[in-house]
């Protein structure tokens, strides 16, 4: 059955064209209801006015964005200065997410390479093992991390018992603790796409490089890495983006000083101190930033793909 029939003039008419549109409806509905609509609602809320005990008043203005970028004094009557508080929180988020992404890459790449070079039969087992810790809820994993990293925790016990350090190595409530937390939260998102890319890699190319007098490091740098680059980029995006907006790791592991944009947004919707329009505005700014980064990466990718084919 081809889905077409030929009429008397010999013209084939597509009798299923109509049906095909209807079959796409669930996909469009899902996108619309679960992606576009929430973003649209958030966009509207970011322009509304704050209600005293959370919630909004339906009056449109730019107050939320103004509050994010400008400081007009306590009573809002002084000349506008740049408000650095939120911008620096934003900047710290980028920096923390970047560091976590780098850690994931440094650990995730060798892991992915290892799995991809195992005999074909055992590869699914390794992938399965990688995912096991992630069956546990993120909150519980992050809390456990807190116990691990404590001054009196197993990590410090271990280091001190082996005489590597004399006094506890202070990790908890530092940037490093947040980075470790983010790294551990999203590591599989780095490993899996890189694994998929390395698995597709034609290892004869590494042999060819060795045959042409390249040592192992040069082969990695000039042949393997360019070939699996799309997987590496995908992994970096998948770790970086959720890390940027994360609030569990910074809240539980970073303490009050290591606030990130995710925590800032979370605060605005929690309890009485909240400011819904401000939270929505911060979310929109985060979304825009991430979108810009993704577009830049996609452009770069498109050039790369164009070059390769």
């Amino acid at each position: 059955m081809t889905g077409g029939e030929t009429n008397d003039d010999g013209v084939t008419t597509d009798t299923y064209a109509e049906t095909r549109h209807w079959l796409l409806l669930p996909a469009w509905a899902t996108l619309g209801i679960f992606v576009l609509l929430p973003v649209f609602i958030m966009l509207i809320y970011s322009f509304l006015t704050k209600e005293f005990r959370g919630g909004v008043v339906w009056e449109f203005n730019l107050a939320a964005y103004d509050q994010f970028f400008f400081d007009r004094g306590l009573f809002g009557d002084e000349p506008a200065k740049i408000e650095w508080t939120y911008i620096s929180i934003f900047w710290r988020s980028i920096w923390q997410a970047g560091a976590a992404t780098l850690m994931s890459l440094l650990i995730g790449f060798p892991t992915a390479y290892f799995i991809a070079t195992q005999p074909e039969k055992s590869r699914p087992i390794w992938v399965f093992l990688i995912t096991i810790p992630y069956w546990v809820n993120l909150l519980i994993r992050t809390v456990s991390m807190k116990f691990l990293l404590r001054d009196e925790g197993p990590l410090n016990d271990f280091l001190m018992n082996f005489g590597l350090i004399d006094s506890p190595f202070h990790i908890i409530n530092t940037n490093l603790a947040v980075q470790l937390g983010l790294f551990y939260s999203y590591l599989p998102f780095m490993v899996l796409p890189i694994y998929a890319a390395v698995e597709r890699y034609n290892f004869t190319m590494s042999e060819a490089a060795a045959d042409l007098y390249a040592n192992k490091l040069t082969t990695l740098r000039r042949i393997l890495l360019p070939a699996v680059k799309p997987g590496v980029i995908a992994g970096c995006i998948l770790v970086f983006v959720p890390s940027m907006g994360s609030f569990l790791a910074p809240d539980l592991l970073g303490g009050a000083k290591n606030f990130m944009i995710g925590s800032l947004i979370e605060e605005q919707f929690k309890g009485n101190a909240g400011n819904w329009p401000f939270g929505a505005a911060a979310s929109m700014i985060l979304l825009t930033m991430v979108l810009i980064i993704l577009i830049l990466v996609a452009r770069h990718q498109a050039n790369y793909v164009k070059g390769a084919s």
Partner: protein
Amino acid sequence: MSESRKIAIEVRDAVKRYGDFTALKKISLSIYDNEFFTLLGPSGCGKTTLLRMIGGFEDVTEGDIFLYGDEIAALPPNKRPVNTVFQNYALFPHMTVLENVAFGVEMRGSSKPEAETRASEVLELVQLSQFSGRKPSQLSGGQQQRVALARALAPKPKLLLLDEPLSALDRKLRKTMQLELKHLQRETGITFIFVTHDQEEALTMSDRIAVMSSGEVQQLGEARDIYERPHNKFVADFIGETNLLEISVHAINDGLATCHLVGGHILTCPAVDGVSVGNKVHLSVRPERLFITDQPTNAEGFKGKVLENIFVGTDISTLIDLGEGPGFTVRTSNSERGNKRIFEPGSEVYINMELGAARLLVD
């Protein structure tokens, strides 16, 4: 083949085992300088394993490999002045043709401009200069093949290894590339070791051939020698088309063996070492060395009946049934049709051969 020729590569008692499986059983062979040498055999015979051992991609379980007298078995591939043309080419997809070809030269220590100059030279040699700026994926299979060849030749290796490089090309292109490869070998003077399972390809290109099967060299010699004087049943059967006849040796006199075939036929052929009276062995007769007549020409003609004529372009193959005894295939060249008749199926004919056309085989 004079004994004074320089030996490019010497494999001495090389063994390759993968766990319990022995891929190569004590192989010893010498390949001369400036030679086009072919390892020929069916898949799984160990020819690629041997090539990969010479290239450094497989460890040698036992034995030694010498390259112009230097022991190389322990060196990694990037330390051997040997380059390979891989079966699937393994071109670097993110590099241009020129960058691909320059890669090896650069890795050997040349500056980038030097490497690219050399790469351009070699691309000229394989007639690909106008494609130097393209990516491999923008080339046809035949062009990719030449890039792989240029890339392997550019660093001026002492030895070029070719692992079934033509197998992905269509028949016509393969024929052209066979000749081109042969010319290239003569022009560059580099020793080529070529791996193939295609006996026709091996006969066309090689100075010498090593026929391999189940991890052993069955016969090593010049192409013509292997075709005309196969040593054993495997070689006779694998190289070219042949009539393999079961015989028993009845007598050997003055270098001639009298053989009895099934069905009471008798055939005389030159004796060979390793076959003595009473042996039940095989005998090979190439179909093109037989001819058909309707009258007996001498006492040894076999009488039979034509079953079928098969037109194969340049030749006609005639299948003949001897009634009792083996069937025969006789090949008649189309150009000889004037003086050699083609007999219709059902005709009674005699199969004749010159003395020496039949070859006794060691099993």
